[in-house]
Every structure is written in C-alpha cells, then in structure tokens.
C-alpha cells in the first residue's frame, strides 16, 4: 500500500513530466522532450486511432526516440468532428483527421525535422505565426472544463497521471479534515444538482441516505446512459475513470457506505475496460479497499454491466437489474435513499454528477456556486450532434445561451443550412425552436419553455428535418423500450405513435392534434415511472412550437421538409432534363419512362414509384425534384 507521503511523491514527480502539456511555454524538460497525445475516445478509435498510436510508437522506435518522445492515448478532446485528433506538446500543434498513413510524415517532418505538417494542422489553431493554445480556439473558448478537466489531457490507463492532476487528494481531505456531515454540507452549499436528468440536489440525496437506518448502505453510479445520441458519461469514464472512483469513495464516507456499484452499458467496451483497469490500479495502490489509503475507512467498488434496456437507466429499475432481475421500475416512495439496493439505503448518482465532487471538495462550495447562476450552479456537459459542424463533447457554464453553443462552439449548421430546432433531453425532452435560441441553458429556463435539461444530448436540426417525423422517432423509441408494467405507458404511448404514423402518411385529421394532447396528459399523470411520465414530451413540445407543420401534414397532405415519404412525390423538371436516361436505369421498379434525348417524354409514374429516392442523386442535372 502506498502511504499519503508516497502518493505525494508520485504527484510531484509526475507534475514535472506532464508540465510540457500545459502549452504555456514554461515547462521543465525531463528525459521526455515531447508528448504526442492521441485521442483514444470511442469516436476516434473507430476512426483507427489505435493503429495510429501503434504506428507512432513503431516509427519513433526506428528513430531511437521512444524515450524522448512519449506517445499517450488520452480521452476525448471533444472536437469529434475533426477526429482522429493528435496534439503535439510542448509546441501545442493540433493535427486533425490523422490516419495511420499520415504518421510517417508527422514523425519525419515534425518530430524529427522540426517542421509542422501544414496539410494536417487545424487552421484555426495556428494564428499569426504561433500556435494558439487549444483553449483559445472558437470551439473551446466559451467552454469551462470541470468534469472534463482531465479528459484529453491525461492517460486514463495510468493512475499516476490522475494523481498528478491532484487526484486522490479530495478523499483524504474529507476523511482527515471533515466529518461526514461536513462533506454533505459542502455539497449542499455548492448547490450541485443531479446531471442524470432529474436535477435533484445531490447534497440532499446524500443527507437522506446518511440519516437512513441500515446496517449496510450502498453507493451506485448510474452509467447506463440511455439517451440515444449522447455520450457524456461514456467520455468521462473513458477519459478520467479515477475521478468517478474517487467521488464514489467520498460519497461512501459521507453516507456511511462501504460498497459501491457502477452500472454501465455493455455497449461501451472501452469505458468498461478503462474503468476495470482503473479499479485494479487503485486497489494495487491501496487506495481502494480495506483501510483505504491508511485512513481507517473501507470502500470497494464492483462493476455491473447493463444489457441494453433503456428503462434500466431509471434508478429503481437499475437497482432491480443489479439484483439480477428483469429491470422493471418499482413504486416510489420508498425512495432509494431509504430502501434501495437489496432493500438497503442507497445513494444513486449519475457519472457526471460524481465527476464534479472532487473538484468541489478541493476548491470549495463558494467557488463552485460562483459558476452559473443561483439554483443552477456549475457546468453541464453536452454531446452536441446532428446537423451541426462541430459535433462533439462540450462543457459549458450553466446559463450559457443556446446561441453560443450552436453558433460559436458548434460552428452553425452543416452546409450553411438554416437552424430549425435543437432537441434536449432525448426521448424525455422537448425541442427548442430557432426563435428561442437566446434561451440560457439551465434546468429552470429549459423547463420553462417546455423542454428539459436532460442528461446532455443536444441534437441540432435544420430545415431538412421534419418535426412530425422527429416526434414519431422518439415515440417509436419509447414504445420499444417501455417495460410494459403499467397500462398508460404501454398502451397510451403506442396510441400516440399510431396517430403520429397516420399523420405522417397523410391520413391524419385535425382532431388528432387535440386528441394527442389530451392523451399525453393522461400518460404523464398516470404512468408509474419517469419513462412513461416523460414519453409524451417530444409530442407536446413539437405541437407547441411547430403546429403549422402538423397542419401541413394533415390538411395539405404535404411534408414541408420533404421527409415523410408517403407525402412525397418525385417529378421531373423537363427544363433541366436532357433525356440521358440515367434515372431510368437507377430506378429499381421501372417507375420512370422516357425516350433517349427526348426530355419532354420523361415522367415518373406515381403509382409505381416506391419513393426510394435512388433517381435523385443519379441525375447530374438536378432535374429530379422532390415535392
């Protein structure tokens, strides 16, 4: 077991080595002269960054530089759209879209030759003849990284690097200098609210757990991340697993629990593997386990894998699933804090919520609550996706406007299209229309406009997305994922889905709109768990802000965005057509007729057309129109 003194020695030594990643120009060069940081997040690994890393290592070895230049696989940098990303320190050169074939050039030209490879350099990061620090670029400028502080900076598979970033300092501080109540008071004073979607004050949850009677108590980390289109929690676990471990230990001390569970999606293999590795290293160092860090307390963590059921993200269903059953929610109260896992008091928190804790302990509640606004303190991580230029992971202070996120950080919509709406909260949330783009992003403001903060998925939609179709998409999801235990959710949401399907096929009636709203009220009121209670939200909010689109589908039998296939027609613009017959050859069902070089004879036979759209891109003259 390492003593606190030994941990401090590791911290001091590693800090010096890692100072070259600071990009401040001031660093102490040890034997390591350069750092090559490669993104090892799921997105970039899928883009072959693992092979890139091996290639770097092999080439550096060929040049006998393997000791002087370290190659480090870090967590997500955030700017996934430019991935795979490689950053070279101390100069801070930011390379984008780096594939294995590019490694040779970077090694020869840059690492050996001292010249930047201009072709691969991020244009914005290079300014007036110097490298702009990453955090001054447009994408990072408005961000503030607390949960993601170490993501993209440290090697998540090396506990020493976490320790160097003041890791495993917060837990000893709690145990040596604070009482469990004192820790809870700090968390309460920070006003930290749960990041898993509900926004429940974390300090209060811990307080109830601490006060509840029980010979055994549990800490559970919710890493089920079910929102389809969100990957905040995964990135934190992949990039900085120790921060979650340390905060579970702190929660254990505060609530009087000696055992913790992390329930994580099996679809996240890299996160699972890094978490297991981190747990192993923490145990080896004596940080986790009996008499952790020699401070007289015990805490250990087990990992349980989810098995692909969205409802298991709901806290009571999750606990039921850990117990080894079908993950069905149960009636609350009793709350988990009183009667949770195996009937014992349980504090269940989301990954991102937990990732804030060590920082709050180290920097104080005042520091934390000075970020954001009262009642909505701190930052929130969002997975920015959809029709946006800079897809990726962003962390912003609460109260940042949607405009800043979309226009400044996100770089606006792709291909210069017009921003139509953003969707937050996934299948439980709602949309924010373009006219409300100046809404500050925090729990209260989003709820006020009929959306919600959610767990952090932020999907951008442009003029080509149909809102009826989006509502249908989410309902399809919840119908599929409803556990079926209670009727309003099982049947009610299915009815909503059927009505939406009818509308999208041009078979809707005007009274459908009111019927959906009424049905939604019942479902929200009578469902047992959060899944059912929030499932109608996407329907209600799209009707609220895009009623005219619903009316267009119902009355005019038209889909203004051109998405709902049943309402589409492909026709030929005879002015543009030159009669080349390419479209005829592409059509799988012979639905286009026409004679070679006689544009006036060209026609789509609507009865035959299956609206597959194969003809549209085939035409080089843009003569196929979708109306």
């Amino acid at each position, binding site marked *: 077991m390492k003593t606190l003194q030994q941990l401090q020695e590791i911290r001091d030594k590693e800090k010096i080595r890692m100072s070259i990643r600071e990009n401040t120009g001031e660093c102490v060069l040890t034997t390591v002269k350069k750092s090559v940081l490669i993104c090892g997040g*799921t*997105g970039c690994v*899928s*883009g072959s960054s693992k092979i890139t890393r091996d290639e770097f290592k092999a080439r550096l070895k060929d040049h006998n530089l393997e000791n002087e230049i370290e190659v480090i696989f870090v967590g997500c940098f955030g700017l*996934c*759209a430019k*991935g795979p990303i490689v950053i070279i320190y101390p100069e801070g050169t930011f390379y984008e879209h780096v594939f294995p074939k590019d490694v040779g050039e970077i090694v020869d030209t840059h690492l050996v030759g001292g010249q930047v490879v201009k072709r691969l350099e991020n244009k914005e990061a290079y300014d007036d003849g110097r490298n702009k620090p990453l955090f001054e670029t447009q994408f990072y400028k408005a961000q503030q990284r607390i949960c993601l502080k170490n993501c993209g900076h440290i090697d998540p598979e090396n506990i020493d690097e976490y320790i160097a970033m003041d890791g495993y300092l917060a837990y000893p501080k709690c145990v040596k200098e604070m009482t469990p109540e004192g820790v809870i008071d700090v968390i309460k004073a920070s006003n930290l609210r749960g990041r898993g979607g509900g926004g429940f004050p974390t300090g209060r949850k811990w307080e109830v757990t601490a006060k509840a009677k029980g010979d055994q108590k549990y800490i559970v980390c919710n890493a089920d991340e*079910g*929102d*389809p*289109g*969100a*990957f905040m929690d*995964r*990135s934190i676990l992949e990039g900085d697993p120790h921060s979650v471990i340390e905060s579970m230990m702190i929660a254990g001390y505060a609530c009087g629990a000696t055992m913790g569970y992390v329930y994580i999606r*099996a*679809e*996240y293999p890299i996160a699972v593997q890094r978490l297991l590795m981190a747990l192993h290293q923490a145990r080896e160092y004596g940080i986790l386990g009996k008499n952790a860090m020699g401070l007289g307390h015990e805490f250990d963590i087990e990992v*349980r*894998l*989810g*098995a*692909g*059921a*969205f409802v298991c993200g709901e806290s009571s269903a999750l606990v039921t*699933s*850990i*117990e*080894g*059953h*079908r*993950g069905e929610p149960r009636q609350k109260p009793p709350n988990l804090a009183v009667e949770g896992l*195996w009937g014992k008091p349980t504090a269940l928190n989301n990954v991102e919520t937990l990732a804030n804790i060590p920082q709050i302990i180290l920097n104080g509640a005042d520091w934390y609550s000075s970020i954001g606004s009262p009642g909505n303190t701190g930052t929130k991580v969002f*997975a920015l*996706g*959809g*029709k946006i230029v800079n*897809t*990726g992971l962003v962390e912003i202070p609460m109260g940042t406007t949607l405009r800043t996120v979309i226009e400044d950080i996100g770089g606006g919509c792709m291909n210069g299209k017009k921003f139509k709406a953003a*969707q937050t909260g*996934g299948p439980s949330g709602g949309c924010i229309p373009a006219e409300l783009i100046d809404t500050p992003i925090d729990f209260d403001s989003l709820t006020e406009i009929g959306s919600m903060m959610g767990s952090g*998925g932020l*999907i*951008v*939609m442009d003029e080509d*997305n149909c809102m009826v179709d*989006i509502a249908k*998409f*989410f309902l399809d999801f919840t119908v599929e994922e409803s*556990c079926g235990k209670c009727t309003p959710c099982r049947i009610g949401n299915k009815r909503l889905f059927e009505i939406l399907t009818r509308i999208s096929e041009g078979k809707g009636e005007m009274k459908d709109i009111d019927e959906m709203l009424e049905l939604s009220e019942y479902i929200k009121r009578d469902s047992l768990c959060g899944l059912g209670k929030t499932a109608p939200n996407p329907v209600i909010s799209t009707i609220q802000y895009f009623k005219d689109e619903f009316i267009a589908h119902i009355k005019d039998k038209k889909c203004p965005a051109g998405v709902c296939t049943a309402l589409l027609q492909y026709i030929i613009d005879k002015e543009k057509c030159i009669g080349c017959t390419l479209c005829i050859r592409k059509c799988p069902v012979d639905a286009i007729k026409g004679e070679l070089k006689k544009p006036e004879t060209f026609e789509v036979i609507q009865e035959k057309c299956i609206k*597959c*759209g194969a003809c549209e*891109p085939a035409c080089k003259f843009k003569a196929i129109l979708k109306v």
Partner: protein
Amino acid sequence: MSAFVDTVEQKEQLDAVLSDLKVVKGSLMIAMQKAQEIYGYLPKEIQERIAENLSFPLEKVYGIATFYSQFHIHKPGKYKVGICMGTACYVRGADLLLKRVEEITGILAGQTSENGLYTVEATRCIGCCGLAPLITVGEEVFGNINADDVNRIMENYKE
C-alpha cells in the same frame, strides 16, 4: 435446425463461471452475460444449465433473456450488421442506410438470413455521433457514409 452441441472447452469455461458465481449476490445476469460471451448466444440448453446450476427456475432465466435486448436466444449470423438509429445518426439520414442494408441482405432489421451469413440490427447510439450516420459490421465502424457507400462496404462481407 440442428441440435445444439458445445465443445468441451466451452463447457469447461461455463462450468468454471457458474461455480465462481454461486457465491455472488445477484449473479444471474452476470452468468448469462458470460455464457453469451462463450457461446455467442443463449440457446435453450445453456439457459437450462444456468438455471439448474444457480438454482433459478428456467422461466426466470428466459424472462431475463427476453427482457434485455443484448441477449440473443437464436444463433446470430456470421456478420452482425448494425445500423445506428440513435438520434444523431437518424437526423443525418440513418434510415436510408438501414433501407440499403435491408435491400442488400434481403432481410429486415432484427432478422438473421437463412444462409446464416447476416444478422441485421438497428442499434442504439454507439457513441460515435461525430461519425454519423454509420453502420457497424462486427467490431468495425464505418462512419460518415451514404447509401452508396453501404454497397461498397458490404462487398467485403459476401461469404
């Protein structure tokens, strides 16, 4: 369908897993996950063996196997083709990729082809939204693609 037979190694692995898990609280799901790792799916014979060893009724095992989408009770195809239908992929046209995969393989999402070559699945967000829309074949991810790219990709998985 031919009867299920496992190899000696597979059987030994499963036996070891089950005897380890006898003492773990809430071990049923873990056992099923490990068993699926060993066999690729959970045929009735294996469900029975798990039920017997861990002293659970078979209905309970079957109930769990059908509740969670990760468990497969039928043998999957040689190539598992997944089309991400997460929100980020969907708004970028994932349905067109799905349609094309279905055309090429001749089966619908959720099905396995008769020749045992393909299983097509509409999956949830796999966390590569920056590459949206995308498909996966086994562990490989193909991102930022359109329907015509799907034809090109599937050329490599024909036998």
